[in-house]
């Protein structure tokens, strides 16, 4: 191992240790809540990044997959008594199947059109959640009983959620890292960079994007299930409305699309802004944090097209095998 690689490993270990140990010293639920949100959104943005960042197919419909996860595990638990540990996988499978169907139908569309089609898809999902009352209870939402129990994935303290969130985040980062360093990742990126050249080099483009879509939507659903278990109450506005799709894309873009750590860095930057503003202003200035989100998004698009992490990486870890 050369010197640079040693340094990178040390930084990585320090980073993981920091996020694993810090919650133990934070006694304030308000800040623990912040950690959970960072992990949830970082993981979700990472899932979006797989198809939209690496694959270059910009999705504005990932709210649907997140919501499918949340509703599937919650409904299975409430109606059938199925443990969320199982229910979350059911949600993931459903999301993956729907994601693949959506991909088969829409991947032939080019950039703008694909974004619009996924936007419509996400909107259909959210309308269904709102109006299929027999299934989802509509706007009234679904409440999970608060009886802490590991088998029901309901933890007595926030710390449980923090570590499960961290686990999900690490899983997404590992999967992304693995994809980036696999044939699938190479082919995805080749396709994004130039479809004709990729095909001329023997890259079976349709297949790789469908796999990426399945992984991306399944992960989104898993995170959605977890988020539902954390909220213990879900309704269309908290788990499936369209703004969720926009927000997840925004985090990933600002952090840096097509990189392993970028989307997480995006969440790491944005969530504290929200928490800080909420603490300082309460609900005095509603929407202010979103104005700031939008402003940062545009500034990054204009002046840091690779995102904040993309830029830092180019400067400090140009050829690192770990920081991607």
């Amino acid at each position, binding site marked *: 191992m050369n010197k640079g690689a040693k340094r990178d490993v040390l930084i990585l270990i320090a980073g993981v240790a920091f996020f694993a140990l810090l919650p133990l010293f934070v006694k304030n639920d308000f800040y623990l809540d912040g950690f959970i949100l960072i992990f949830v959104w970082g993981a979700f943005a990472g899932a979006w990044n797989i198809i939209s960042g690496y694959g270059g197919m910009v999705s504005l419909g990932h709210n649907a997959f997140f919501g499918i996860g949340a509703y599937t595990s919650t409904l299975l638990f409430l109606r059938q008594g199925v443990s969320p540990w199982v229910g979350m996988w059911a949600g993931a499978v459903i999301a993956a199947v729907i994601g693949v169907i959506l991909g088969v139908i829409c991947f032939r569309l080019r950039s703008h059109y694909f974004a619009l*089609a996924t*936007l419509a*898809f996400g909107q259909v999902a959210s309308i269904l959640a709102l109006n299929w009352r027999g299934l989802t209870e509509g706007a009234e939402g679904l409440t999970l009983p608060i009886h802490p129990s590991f088998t029901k994935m309901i933890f007595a303290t926030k710390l449980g959620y923090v570590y499960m969130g961290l686990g999900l985040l690490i899983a997404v980062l590992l999967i992304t890292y693995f994809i980036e360093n696999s044939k699938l990742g190479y082919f995805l990126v080749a396709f994004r960079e130039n479809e004709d050249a990729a095909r001329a080099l023997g890259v079976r483009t349709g297949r790789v994007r469908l796999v990426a879509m399945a992984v991306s939507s399944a992960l989104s659903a898993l995170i959605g299930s977890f988020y539902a278990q954390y909220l213990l109450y879900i309704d269309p506005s908290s788990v499936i409305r369209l703004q969720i799709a*926009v927000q997840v894309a925004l985090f990933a873009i600002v952090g840096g699309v097509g990189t392993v750590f970028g989307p997480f860095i995006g969440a790491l930057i944005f969530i504290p802004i929200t928490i800080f503003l909420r603490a300082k202003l309460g609900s005095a200035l*509603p*929407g*202010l944090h*979103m*104005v700031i989100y939008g402003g940062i998004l545009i500034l990054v698009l204009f002046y840091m097209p690779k995102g904040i992490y993309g830029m830092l990486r180019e400067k400090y870890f140009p050829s690192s095998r770990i920081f991607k």
Partner: protein
Amino acid sequence: MSSTLFAQLVISGILLGGIYALSSIGLTLIFGVMKIVNFAHGEFLMLAMYVSFWLFHSLHIDPYLSMVISVPLFFVVGMLTYKIFIRKTIGAPILAQIFVTVGLSIIIENLALLFWSADFRTVSLAYLSKPLIVGPFPGLGLEEIIVNKARFIAFFLGISLSVAFYLFMKFSYLGKVIRATSQDRTTALLMGINIDRVYTLSFAMGILLVGIAGALMIPIYTVHPFVGFEFVLIMFVVVVLGGMGSIMGAMIAGLFIGVVEVFSGFLIGPESKQAIYFLVFIAVLVFRPSGLFGEKGEEELERIEAIGE
């Protein structure tokens, strides 16, 4: 379904569609000329509704008269938006093309929330309160049909302006210049056309049109910071159905979606009606990307370009 009810639904649908047509034309114009999807289009509509609301509320200016102010105002707003934000995205990577206007929509929506709160605001005009009663037409087997005055005015002005704009694009010299630029910008440049100016103008006109639509809608709809979001989705449907970039297509598709919405609202219930046309929307995108009603949409132009090479 009785024939009276049927006629009533058709008329309501067409009246609704007139508004959709007018508000979508700007969006299709902007896409046709500079290949940018303006995700913030609905937020400009929302601003326009607020402008008319505040002019009515504080200065007692009739919404229909407020157009005199909002037309130049939104033209300038459009120009500035182009110069500050949109110009940088032309030729930029797809992510920037999509998310700069998404960012703009987030900013405008939440600024509205900051300044005006989430309150629902309405303008009610005494002279519009009584509906028009048309009929009965015993010859056609129809009983009385009720027509909402504000909707009728919005439809009438909306369609007239849409047609006027269509004729402007078809027959005026500037209209021809804009169309030429949208088809081949390099050659337009060689003809002495200042592309940047055409883009500025097109964007400003697109926003101006939505400015007018806002004034026509405020007597009908309540305005709140999120109203743009509701309408922009319908506008996307209309624009895609009409063939992206086709003005005539957007007009026909606007009317069509109005009728579909009223009927599905009646038959399936008002909540699920949106789901119907979003499904139609996805189907059209996939199977006929040049639109159902487009004369010649984006896709066809690309084909022509491909052959030209």
